[in-house]
């Protein structure tokens, strides 16, 4: 079965051949994992290809499919939002609470603890 990474590579090949972007280009973004998410996933970053106009909710779903270990602890059991205790920041600048917020191509989505106490 093809994985999102297979599609990503295939689309990239067509792009290179044609010299322009094809219609319905998927949105490429990177998820950066911190704290518990990183320890559970045993990785710091993961690339995701999402449909155009994808929302954070869809990103969480895609992430949950790629890393099922995160479901329950980091991503809610419904896989459409973060679990309580986790927060999301886009590009290191903006904390986003609304899961319907759109993901833009090239976004780096940080998943971290919602509690910054130290």
């Amino acid at each position, binding site marked *: 079965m093809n994985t999102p990474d297979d599609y990503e590579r295939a689309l990239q090949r067509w792009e290179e051949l044609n010299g322009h972007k094809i219609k319905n280009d998927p949105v490429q973004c990177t998820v*950066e994992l*911190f704290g*518990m998410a990183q320890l559970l996933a045993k990785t710091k970053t993961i690339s995701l290809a999402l449909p155009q106009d994808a929302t954070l909710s869809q990103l969480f779903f895609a992430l949950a499919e790629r890393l099922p270990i995160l479901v329950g602890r980091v991503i809610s059991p419904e896989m459409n939002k973060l679990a309580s*205790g986790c927060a999301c920041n886009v590009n*290191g*600048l903006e*904390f986003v609470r609304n899961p319907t917020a759109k993901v833009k191509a090239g976004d780096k989505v940080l998943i971290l*603890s919602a*509690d910054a106490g*130290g």
Partner: protein
Amino acid sequence: MYGFHGRLLQIDLTSGKSSQHELQESRLRAFLGGIGLGTSLLYDYAPPGVEPFSPDNPLIFTSAPLVGTGLTTTAKFGVITKSPLTGFIGDSLSSSHFALELKRTGVDSLVITGQAASLVYILISDQKVEIRDAAHLRGKSPNETQAAIRAELNSPTIRVAAIGVAGEHRVRFATISNEGRHAGRGGAGAVMGSKNLKAIAICGDRVPLVCDSDGIAVIATRLRQRSLSSLTDKYRNIGTVANLAVFNRLGVLPAHNFQQSTFDDAEALSGETLSETNFARRHGCASCSIRCERLFKSLNGEEQRLEYETLFALGPLCGIKEPEAVLQAARLCDQYGMDTISTGGTLAWAMECAEKGLLPEAQNFGLCFGRPEGILSAIPIIAARQGLGALLAEGSRRAALEIGGDSSDWAMHVKGLELPGYEPRGLKTLALGLAVSPRGACHNRSGAYEADFSGEVDRLQSDSGRGALVAASEDYAAVLDSLIICKFLRKCFTDFYGEAAELLNRVTGWDCSASELGQIGERIQVTKRLFNQREGWRPQDDWLPPRLLSEALPTGVAQGVALTATELKEMIRGYYETRGLDENGLVPLKKLRELELFKPPADGIKSCQATKHDGY
């Protein structure tokens, strides 16, 4: 009375006498316990203008209504005094078994005044107070002191809070330590040392009655369950060291004495890396289900507790990237009894001075950013006030005043208390919280940074509305610190004031409402300001170090973002307005009346200063 003993134990070390006094229920209801009760007692027991090292400066230990109830995270106690670092209120919390034992002594507070003729320790056992010679304990670490006292008394369960060498030498940021926990910020250990008091050993058997023990048990079970949910995952599974990598990514990790807002070698020191490479075991305070403490192994196999603030202050702030060096520096601070934030902050200041040619002694000593040998050699001489250490033992503000030149511009403190590991230029609500905090640059007496990390506000922008957020956060923290409930449990409440009022009522039998509890928080906070006002606070004390207002964020995702004096002024204005203070930050009579803090002075002279809380 339920939940409290209604008693205060005063010990005068000069005369060696002790006496018990009634603590009126009205005072306890107005200020609760912990930091609130301590603030109220400090106001009354400290003579106006008292020098922090004067025998008259009271060193106050307080218990709290929830302590000993079995509720998770409540085994805590307060230590309150006039800080030798700031000259204002110094209020700290520590925790674990000493807190439980303090509650069992049969009093809600110890007020220690005077000065012993030679080094002593206080033994409180079976309602008796004994002042014992401590000459043989001189030079011992807090842990060694507890072991020695236990052996001497043949009592393996007696609980001890002690100072280390730094406290004996009145290092202005010395701690009072028990069981590896510390009343850390503001130098309470130096005040204890100034009284020639090495330790307090306690053993008690008096447990105050709880009004509704069945009701408490139900809530205790519920809270314990919540404390084991994903809401506390960070604390339970990585600990506070998890902050480092996140703060670095967000460009709010202070490094090289706040000359950088990221650290190139953060990866090596991140909580995630340490968890993989150096983790030894997890530990917790008494009565705590979260068990946030992480102990890490050093190269020689020794275990050392490490928190984010220690990691930041002895790591990136000093340019140190080697985990082993940070662990060793943390161990030294614990052994000598020194606040790691102020230690790191003062060392980083000295490093910058050395770099810029203002403190050749520091340069000769090897105090340079990134050189572990420098800090490892400097910590012992600070604790013993030897050579250069005597200057650094004064903290960055006083040391800078002595050195002169531009060095005050590099002393990163508020009111004399060194800044914690949150970069104010990239967390603007926090910036305001630090500036107006009565105890100085403190991230614990308000959680102002929470607004910045929540997405409720833009952390890189400022507006006058931040004042309301900071005030609310301060009141909330004051209630937590006075009940006492650990802040790491805070997210487990869905309606904090409602649930906390229910808890308090089931313990005490009172009918305290959520709004009354909120007002108590405000009363505590305003009383802190009143104390500071009486001790010489000026509007310019609510301010930030020059660097933060003149240099934009130097590195990271928010590079170039600045915090201007105009922005800070506007936020402060909003804070004073929300607090009901006048435009200069003074507490007006109207506010005193509103919070029932005002009693008309007998001499008929109207004053903005509260009179003694005789009504409580």
